[in-house]
């Protein structure tokens, strides 16, 4: 919503901390040669990309290409092996002094994650809490907000995702689409600057996909910065500002979704799109 790094104001406008500011207008996410291996298998082989503030950034590619892994690196659920990853100008998971990197403490990593919402393919709602409690949990436990304030916001968010009448239900009593909408509300309750979506509709029955995409569309309209891993090419084309096609741990092709999806340049992109479209 209100951007500190709005267009035009050069350089000094942003609250200048000692952090290494990369550019006058900060991208929300910046990846430089990100490498990630599990054991001996290299899953990310040098990812470079930038996601601007308020952008809806779609990530597509075949299964096993490393999309989820990249997304999980952004909030440090996975540690990268080489390269640099910045969110809002801050290095993810490390502190750089000179050319030395220091790992952040658990508390500091948690601090960074507060600003990054994540929505999982399998929802991962807390099953022992009602929808309302799920949404209230992090603001109360992490930010130390009062229950009254957290409840008020949680109710507003659940209303916004169309679940005003479902607040007292446990996740097991909700449909997949409803659960995923609660999960989105839960992430939004921390008032993040950036939202990560990892195939949010892949576990849903086809008729429930629409209700989740509608909520995401609304978020995009409100100016939320979003990185969306998805197989919903219709959504990417309609809502996405840019798209990246990943295969085998590298970015194969990127650009405007309308161009890339209708007129893919690379043959691997063409092959993939011919299968999913």
């Amino acid at each position, binding site marked *: 919503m209100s951007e500190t790094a709005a267009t035009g104001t050069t350089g000094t406008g942003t609250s200048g901390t000692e952090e290494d500011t990369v550019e006058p207008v900060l991208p929300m996410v910046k990846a430089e040669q990100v490498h990630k291996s599990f054991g001996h298998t290299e899953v990310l082989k040098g990812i470079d990309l930038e996601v601007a503030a308020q952008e809806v950034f779609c990530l597509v590619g075949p299964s096993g290409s490393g999309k989820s892994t990249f997304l999980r690196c952004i*909030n440090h*659920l996975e540690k990268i092996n080489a390269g640099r990853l910045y969110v809002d100008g801050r290095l993810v998971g490390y502190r750089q002094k000179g050319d030395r990197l220091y790992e952040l403490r*658990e*508390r500091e990593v*948690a*601090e960074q*994650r*507060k600003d*990054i*919402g*994540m929505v*999982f393919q*399998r929802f*991962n*709602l*807390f*099953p*022992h*809490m*009602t929808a309302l409690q799920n949404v209230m*949990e*992090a603001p109360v*436990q*992490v930010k130390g907000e009062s229950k009254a304030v957290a409840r008020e916001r949680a109710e507003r968010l659940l209303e916004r995702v169309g679940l005003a009448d479902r607040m007292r239900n*446990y*996740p*097991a*009593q909700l449909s997949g689409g409803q659960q995923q909408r609660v999960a989105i509300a*839960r*992430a939004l309750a*921390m008032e993040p600057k950036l939202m990560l979506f990892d195939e949010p509709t892949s576990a849903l029955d086809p008729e429930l996909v629409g209700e989740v995409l509608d909520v995401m569309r609304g978020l995009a309209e409100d100016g939320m910065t979003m990185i969306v891993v998805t197989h919903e090419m219709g959504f990417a084309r309609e809502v996405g500002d840019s798209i990246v096609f990943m295969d085998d741990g590298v970015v194969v092709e990127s650009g405007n979704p309308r161009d890339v999806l209708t007129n893919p340049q690379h043959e691997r992109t063409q092959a993939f799109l011919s299968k999913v479209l």
Partner: protein
Amino acid sequence: MNEAPDTPGEPQEADRASAAAGRDAQVGETRLTKTDTLRTEETATADLPPAAIKAIPVRHWGRWIGAALVLAALAAIGLAFVNGDIAWAVVGERLTDGTFFWPAWETLKISVYAMLIGVVLGTLLAVMRLSSNPVLSAVSYAYIWFFRGTPVIVQLLLWFNLSAVFTYVDLGPIYRNEMNDVMTPFVAALLALGLNEAAYMAEISRAGIQSVDHGQTEAAHALGMSGSKTMRRIVLPQAMRVIIPPTGNEYINMLKTSSLAFAIGYGELFYVAKNVGTTDYSVMEMYLVVSVWYLGLTTIFNVGQYYLERHYSKGANRSLPPTPLQRIRGQLTAFRTPSKVGGTTV
């Protein structure tokens, strides 16, 4: 299946209807020859459900014989006890005169306290065991190895006789006392039973913690929750569902194992039963009396456990399981409703 006309007045009409019904045609015809009142027959096939099957059930002779044998054996055992040299009057008297009220209270007290130590320390040990810190993990492993690997009675006596090797409990400037004063039978029993229980509870808690989907931890971390908060708020409450049933089992075990504390002179149920029995020459009688007490305690606990499990199954099912009262009420009404054909009620 067959759309017969509402009121077939004539035989021919009924014939047409059955013919239209195709595969029912033959059935219709045989019926026509058998019955004289066509009208009722037609409506029967059209509207009413088929008559309930009344078949002669298979006779299970084996079951009858088995039951008879078991009952005969039970009767024989019962008779033996009645005719045996047992002063039943003493049993009845001691059961009701309050001799065992305070000992039962002591049993309850030591078992609850020891169990609390077991649960808290056991959970801690489980978390240590699962931690990525190799020292913590190894210490936890060694603890479990030692306390599970030695008999409780030995541990009881070890604690109680600690004064033989340490004359003083000396914590420097904070605390200093003679070991004999500190290590009362109660303290020794509490330590021995509690620390032993912790080893078992550690394994139960570990299984519970590991049963929680890793996605839960990730979701909590992604929201900015710390590791310890994730454990307390997200993982452990869900692990409870797996932890509680075997913990109830452990507690029932504890109620009974606490009787071993008689060996160090702790005045719980069994210790008193033994003393009263030897002084009054009613050893067998007193063992029967405490058996009733133990049964009573475990029975009460079973009911409590049911409600505890019900509490922690919140969210695991679409609806909570019924309380025993609700279930009894349901079964009573089930008696009044006739059993449905093809339904689940019997």
